[in-house]
């Protein structure tokens, strides 16, 4: 019964989204106060109905209600309860329902936190969110309904959740990712509302900033978790694959990062106006494009959901209406806007412009790499594939100038910067960079001119520049302790995010250069040496889990005779889905990971094992974590919570 209530709630939610798309927008153009004020209750209603519907589907999973087709295809009575709940978003229909829940959540949050915005503007934002919602609710209700029943002939048990998804990383990866994707819908709605109004002062940028930061923070976290999950679960030690679906999440992130920086310029200096609006449209458009690519089967990917051309056609039509419509509105409205502010060649504006150029070039590289095979084939030129070397090569070239600019950026003032005052601090940073990079290299490896050294230099440059700049800024308040209480949270957030980027660059460069691996055949008692570590296979024994069986290997690892750790690697067979999964054993330290995957049984007593030693691989995720933490801290800035006009004036004076 509960599933039917869920279906009912979803239907009501669809009706509410229709009202939300029409009523506040009508009010905003006709100046109808009552219609405008209806926006908030409608947004809340949308959220509660969707939340109820989501709860109903979760309950069906919890209670093993296999009359629901979606539950039967993605769960099994033997599945542990926590995976039964996360199986809710393990397939296409349920993950779309999660998408709706996140969309409704953001809409309700906009209604809740922007009550101090002018009513007309708020009404337009909610109206745009409503328009987006209509498209997605109709898609779920009519084309991807998770509440479809198979009565009266329902199966006695379910087909089980894809074993790849039975992992902790998978529990939180999709919700975080969707929070990011859909979060950009809010920035988008702000931009469209501003376009409708045709008023482009810097206020809309300030209002949009915290929302963009929040979405960006979630997306960063989501991408990082996805990378971590792939590393732990796929069993060959990789952490990024340039898979079309990863690219689909990476493109909105790149544009979102550009948007955060461009919004800062628009807010503080009133320039880059048309550019910022375009980025806000672009970030959400790329999220939609990602949804289309994943769910239409246009591209081949390990992530793809079962392809269905009807769904693809619908999503494409939706994409055309939303993106095409907004770009058209942009073209019509934006060409009359001109920026007045002036700035010199050496100024923060120009450096941030450089930041945007590099981030957008990176986006273009990813977009081309992802879509070029499709375009190539549709032009009748045959099938090609674009792989890792293409992306890696181009990203090496992009990251060097980008990092150099990033180390310089925070030091440079708005409008104009004299070169002279920067010479002393920048030379200090340069010296610190050399000491840090060469020191780290000497301590962990031998000094060589290679990719790792380049990464260390760039990372140390960005990192030490960020720290020095923070210290200098704090000292301006009299003393560092005084500064700690007075400096605004945005600045701390920015510094932390930049350090996160530095950490990420170091991690990628070191892992790429110094990772070693070997595939070996081992018997119990055998010992293999890799990068100075002795891996000893102690035993392999049979394993029995709730919904799988398999084998486990126990290894002892020592380094130059000293015992380091014990490793436990598993190979699981999931009978319902007839698939084999690797649970790699990982011993993680900041300086390196030891990674062991158990392979095939080769004879009675010998096994194939893959052994990896991956220096600094943790730094990749640590970097991502620091970036999103930076986003979180910046969000806490008091500035975003005061709205009165007098304070707005004061802000401008400060800037």
């Amino acid at each position, binding site marked *: 019964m509960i599933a039917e209530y869920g279906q009912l709630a979803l239907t009501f939610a669809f009706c509410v989204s229709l009202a939300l798309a029409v009523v506040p927008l009508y009010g905003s153009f006709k100046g109808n106060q009552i219609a405008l004020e209806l926006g908030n209750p409608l947004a809340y209603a949308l959220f509660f109905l969707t939340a109820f519907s989501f709860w109903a589907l979760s309950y069906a999973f919890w209670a093993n209600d296999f009359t629901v087709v979606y539950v039967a295809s993605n769960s099994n009575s033997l599945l542990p309860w926590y995976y039964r709940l996360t199986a809710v978003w393990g397939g296409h229909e349920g993950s779309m329902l999660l998408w709706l829940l996140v969309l409704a959540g953001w809409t309700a949050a906009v209604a809740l936190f922007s009550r101090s915005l002018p009513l007309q503007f708020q009404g337009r934002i909610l109206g745009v969110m409503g328009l987006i919602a209509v498209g997605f609710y109709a898609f779920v209700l009519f084309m991807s309904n998770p509440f479809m029943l198979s009565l009266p002939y329902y199966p006695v048990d379910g087909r089980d959740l894809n074993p790849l998804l039975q992992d902790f990383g998978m529990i939180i990866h999709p919700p975080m990712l969707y929070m990011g994707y859909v979060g950009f819908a809010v920035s988008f709605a702000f931009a469209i509302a501003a376009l409708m109004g045709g008023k482009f002062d810097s206020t809309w940028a300030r209002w949009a900033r915290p929302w963009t930061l929040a979405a960006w923070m979630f997306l960063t976290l989501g991408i990082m978790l996805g990378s971590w999950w792939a590393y732990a679960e796929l069993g060959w030690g990789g952490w990024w694959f340039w898979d079309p679906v990863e690219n689909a999440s990476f493109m909105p992130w790149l544009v979102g990062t550009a948007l955060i920086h461009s919004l800062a310029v628009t807010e503080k200096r009133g320039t880059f106006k*048309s550019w910022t609006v*375009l980025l806000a*449209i*672009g970030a959400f*458009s790329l999220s939609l494009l990602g949804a*289309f690519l994943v769910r*239409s*089967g*246009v*591209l*081949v990917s390990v992530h793809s959901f079962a392809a269905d*051309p009807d769904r*693809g*056609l619908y999503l*494409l039509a939706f*994409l*055309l209406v939303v*993106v*095409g419509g907004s*770009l*058209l509105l*942009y*073209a*019509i409205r*934006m*060409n009359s806007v001109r920026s007045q502010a002036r700035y010199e060649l050496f100024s923060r504006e120009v450096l941030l412009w450089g930041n945007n150029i590099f981030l957008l070039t990176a986006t273009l590289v990813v977009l081309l790499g992802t*879509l070029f095979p*499709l*375009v190539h*084939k*549709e032009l009748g030129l*045959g*099938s090609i594939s674009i792989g890792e070397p293409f992306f890696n090569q181009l990203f090496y070239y992009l990251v060097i100038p980008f990092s150099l600019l990033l180390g310089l950026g925070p030091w440079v003032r708005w409008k104009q910067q004299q070169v002279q005052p920067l010479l002393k601090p920048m030379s200090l940073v340069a010296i610190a960079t050399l000491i840090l990079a060469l020191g780290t290299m000497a301590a962990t490896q031998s000094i060589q001119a290679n990719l790792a050294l380049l990464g260390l230099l760039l990372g140390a440059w960005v990192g030490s520049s960020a720290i020095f700049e923070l210290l200098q800024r704090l000292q301006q308040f009299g003393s560092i302790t005084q500064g700690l209480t007075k400096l605004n949270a945005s600045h701390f957030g920015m510094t932390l995010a930049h350090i996160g980027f530095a950490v990420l660059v170091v991690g990628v460069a070191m892992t790429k250069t110094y990772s070693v691996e070997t595939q070996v*055949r081992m018997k119990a008692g055998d010992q293999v040496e890799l990068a100075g570590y002795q891996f000893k296979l102690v035993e392999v024994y049979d394993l029995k889990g709730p919904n799988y069986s398999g084998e486990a290997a126990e290894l002892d690892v020592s380094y130059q005779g000293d015992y380091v750790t014990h490793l436990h690697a598993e190979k699981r067979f999931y009978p319902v889905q007839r698939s084999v999964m690797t649970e790699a054993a990982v011993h993680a330290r900041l300086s390196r990971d030891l990674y062991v995957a158990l392979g095939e049984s*080769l*004879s009675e007593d010998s096994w*194939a094992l893959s052994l990896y030693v991956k220096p600094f691989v943790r730094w990749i995720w640590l970097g991502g974590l620091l970036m999103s933490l930076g986003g979180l801290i910046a969000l806490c800035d008091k500035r975003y919570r005061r709205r009165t006009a007098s304070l707005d004036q004061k802000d401008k004076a400060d800037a």
Partner: protein
Amino acid sequence: MRKLAFFIPFVLFIGLSVFLFSGLFSDPMARESSVLNKPLPAFSLPDLQQPDNLWTAEKLKGKPYLLNVWGTWCVTCNAELAYLTELREQGVMIIGLYYQQPSDAAFGEVFNLTALQQEVKLKLEQQGDPYQWNILDKDRTLIFDLGVTGAPETFLIDTKGMIRYHHIGDINPQVWQQKLAAAYQSLQE
């Protein structure tokens, strides 16, 4: 001119959508075979059961036939054996190209021809034997030249030794009717 510049994003997006639209209706896995309408690459490979007998591209000319890439290790290949045998009974000539997996010396695997012959014989006795004979491609040279991505794959070859069709995946009644039957019939005449 400045006004028009703001339409650039819109125009680019519409251009992209055209490709996305056409992409919806084509199979992303489908790829044009590079060997289509080219002669069978030159080779000289032994018969699986009578290794003294060497087969070459020349020797195979004369009748249209299906060249079926398979192996006992390949589950899908085993599944299609029954239907292929049915086709053989209808008079379709099928030649097997045996896909031998690489032996990994590090894992103590050694290529053993007698054992393989026994295995193939047993398998074909159990599941049906669609093949006139089997060509053994031990080092996968011909398989590489043919651009085979996996097993099973099937090539339709005409009387002059030209490759007329390249099918990836198993052959079942539906695939045969929709894709191969007509082409095979036309070669008969």
